[in-house]
């Protein structure tokens, strides 16, 4: 191995140690035998994983969160990908202005978006419903898809598409056979960001919480406020486990090399 590679690898490994250390603490605590969350742990046990399945709101809200993240991500793709395709090929100054506008939900503190939307959507008659929650989550997820797809598509040469058209491919065939495979890493990154943003969101979901629409982060917060036991750590470990399973399935379906960005 060359020296430059060695340095790169050392840097990368140090980086991942930094990323994983606080998480490792959480994973270890989820296996504690103690009745409270503290470190180091006195012994090992699986009791906190059992507790997750005993506590019905955890399971109900996990289901709401998964459904919500999937629906919001699909909606963001349907709205965002066409817009990104258009904006990345446009060179005019107003395209920059429109892109600025489409990305602006990112910078608003979510608590403001949640609060303002609660009043506005209630006024429109959506009330506190799964539909209202989906709309607001789509608002906060859309910018990720637009930005990542734009970035990838802009760095692609238009020559590929032009060649396909010259060879007689229809507009739709060109899109399906040439454009879509090219922008796949952008879509994948956007979907991943979107899914995680929705799944992890607290400040927006909080305002739309009810017995039927509470998401996992809202239930976790409510739970922890009055009972800080290691079941919350166990839930985090369970989420990590679900991510591993999802990545393994993606690997089986597409092969890991092609899915550098989890395509």
């Amino acid at each position, binding site marked *: 191995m060359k020296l430059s590679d060695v340095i790169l690898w050392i840097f990368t490994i140090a980086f991942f140690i930094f990323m994983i250390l606080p998480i490792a603490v959480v994973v270890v605590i989820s296996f504690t035998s103690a009745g409270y969350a503290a470190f180091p742990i006195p012994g090992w046990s699986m009791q906190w994983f059992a507790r997750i399945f005993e506590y019905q709101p955890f399971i109900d809200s996990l289901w709401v969160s998964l459904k919500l993240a999937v629906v919001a991500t699909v909606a963001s793709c349907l709205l965002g990908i066409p817009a990104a395709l258009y904006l990345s090929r446009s060179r005019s100054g107003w395209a920059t202005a429109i892109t600025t506008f489409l990305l602006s939900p990112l910078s608003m*503190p979510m608590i403001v978006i949640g609060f303002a939307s609660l009043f506005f959507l209630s006024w429109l008659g959506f009330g506190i419903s799964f539909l209202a929650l989906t709309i607001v989550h789509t608002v906060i997820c859309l910018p990720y898809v637009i930005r990542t797809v734009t970035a990838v598509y802009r760095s692609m040469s238009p020559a590929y598409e032009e060649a396909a058209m010259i060879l007689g491919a229809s507009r739709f065939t060109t899109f399906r056979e040439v454009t879509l495979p090219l922008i796949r890493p952008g879509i994948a990154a956007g979907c991943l960001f979107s899914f995680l943003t929705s799944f992890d969101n607290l400040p927006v979901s909080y305002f739309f919480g009810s017995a039927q629409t509470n998401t996992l982060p809202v239930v976790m917060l409510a739970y922890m406020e009055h009972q800080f036991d290691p079941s919350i750590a166990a839930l985090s470990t369970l989420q990590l486990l679900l991510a591993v399973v999802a990545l393994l399935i993606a690997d089986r379906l597409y092969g890991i090399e092609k899915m550098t960005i989890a395509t």
Partner: protein
Amino acid sequence: MSDSVPMNAKLRQAMLLAPALIFLAVFFVMPLFDNSMRSFMSEDGGFTLSRYTSFLTDRFYLGVIVETVVLAAAVTVISVVIAYPVAYVLVRKAGRLSGVFIFLLIAPLLTSIIMRTFGWQVLFARRGLVNQWLVTDLGILDVPLRWLNTPGLAIAALVHVLVPFAVLSIASVLQGVDRRLEEGALMLGASKLRTFFEVTLPLTMDGIGTGAILVFMIANGSFVTLVLLGGGFQTLPLLIYQQFNTTRDFALASTMSTILLAIALVCLWLQLRLVRRQGA
């Protein structure tokens, strides 16, 4: 695309944009506009700008605005600088390990923020693991260091959750870079370093731009990490959160959100112009 595209084709292309534009106009702009009216309404229901003038002429609040932008910018620069080499290894060197890389990158985002904070506290408390290691095991220090509630640890925790956005943004663009361009430069006698700076880096400018924009925008609006880990920062999102949580002064919260949004939009527009000029 080219200038010869007829008018109705241009219209058809604009239709691509319409759904996203209309959706955000209705479900993002209108609620915020509705909410911002709280900041323009005086006690008796008339129109007033007094909240803005008193906010923007108060030295304390001006300091808060500056601190908000400086903090977001610092987190952005650190994240992008760290992210680039990692993205490079992920795309070019990791091979079958890339799945593991992606898992490690998204792990922090899948761990509840409160548990993540708890992890930091266990590691960096006065009698935490790191101090124990430095004082007892290695004997480098006599007195435990104070980490919690320092600006450094708060920045580290922000970078920790935002750097994945930068890595994945850069990687998704780097993946599409045509390696023949780099090989060509090498064959023409350019050094590896020069090839990197003159070929690879400019080609991935869009990825860097995306990473920087996402990190900056999210950092600019985030408050939960700062609430939980302290660090002595005084930022607009923190003040806004306080209005919701402690004082219930929604008019002041709305004033600050309008100001924050204006700042973010100006910064975003500048960044996008920079990226477009560099990238195109």
